[in-house]
């Protein structure tokens, strides 16, 4: 994403839409881990339905992909309704890019490594007002002002996360980026 380094860039609407769709079409990390590891610090989800196989209940040993974990976690946290499937969670992320209210964010974040060290890394994101985007975002629970925020790692071409966030908090994750730019 070379556009990140250009302070004066303007983005043609067609290019903006291309980038939004590129992000929304990306996958989460391929990592598969047991629930025990995903939830080592986090919500306790044992006994909940497997997001890709509702006949199966989660145990600490159940292996989940990254996107499955995110679907389970954000459902447990009350952002999506009980029983939300992986496909429904991903559909909201993909749909958010199609909303006319979608805002494309680009910039550089700092990625942690080791003990308190960090390195710069490009980031992109899509932030969408959920209530205004119901034609495209169907499943996530929301009240007025809630946004759906998807963060993307361009170097790995992977989604980092996608979650519901309150309007007052929506700018926080991207405001800390350097060279941050938003395209509406």
């Amino acid at each position: 994403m070379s556009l990140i380094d250009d302070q004066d860039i303007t983005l043609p609407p067609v290019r903006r839409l291309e980038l939004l769709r590129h992000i929304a079409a990306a996958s989460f990390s391929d990592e598969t881990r047991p629930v025990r590891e995903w939830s080592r610090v986090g919500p306790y989800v044992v006994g909940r339905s497997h997001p890709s196989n509702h006949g199966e209940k989660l145990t600490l040993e159940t292996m989940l992909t990254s996107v499955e974990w995110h679907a389970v976690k954000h459902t447990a946290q009350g952002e999506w309704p009980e029983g939300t499937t992986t496909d429904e969670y991903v559909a909201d992320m993909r749909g958010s890019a199609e909303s006319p209210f979608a805002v494309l964010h680009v910039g550089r974040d700092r990625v942690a490594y080791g003990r308190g060290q960090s390195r710069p890394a490009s980031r992109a994101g899509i932030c969408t007002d959920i209530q205004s985007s119901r034609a495209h975002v169907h499943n996530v629970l929301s009240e007025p002002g809630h946004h759906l925020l998807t963060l993307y790692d361009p170097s790995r071409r992977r989604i980092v996360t996608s979650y519901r966030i309150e309007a007052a908090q929506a700018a926080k994750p991207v405001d800390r980026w350097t060279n941050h730019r938003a395209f509406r």
Partner: protein
Amino acid sequence: MNLTLDEFLRSLERSVDELPALFAEWDAIDPELYDLYASQLGWLLRARHEATAMATGQGRVIEVAVRLAFANAKLLRLRDSLVLLMGLDLDDILQWHGLQRQSVSISGAVDDLASNDNRYPMAA
């Protein structure tokens, strides 16, 4: 949240108890999990308000207040690692029941509370 009060408390207490081991082996952990764990702990801390409201509705105010205070105290003991490794700040830890950074006497009392782990066995 879609967790019951007991599921939430289990989530928070289990996570807080896991932190010392997690920090001890931090260098061996996949860095991709750093932000994940930090954001998940951040959610648990923010959700303490909702848990407190649930406790009121279920007549469990005192039990839940004590259990949250215990968790809070353990977090305060780990504050240096929470700040350095997880990027949390003291306000993230203390913002519960109106606790603020300047409430030194309150955080001191919470520290004192946790210094005697056998005083409130229901938090075990």
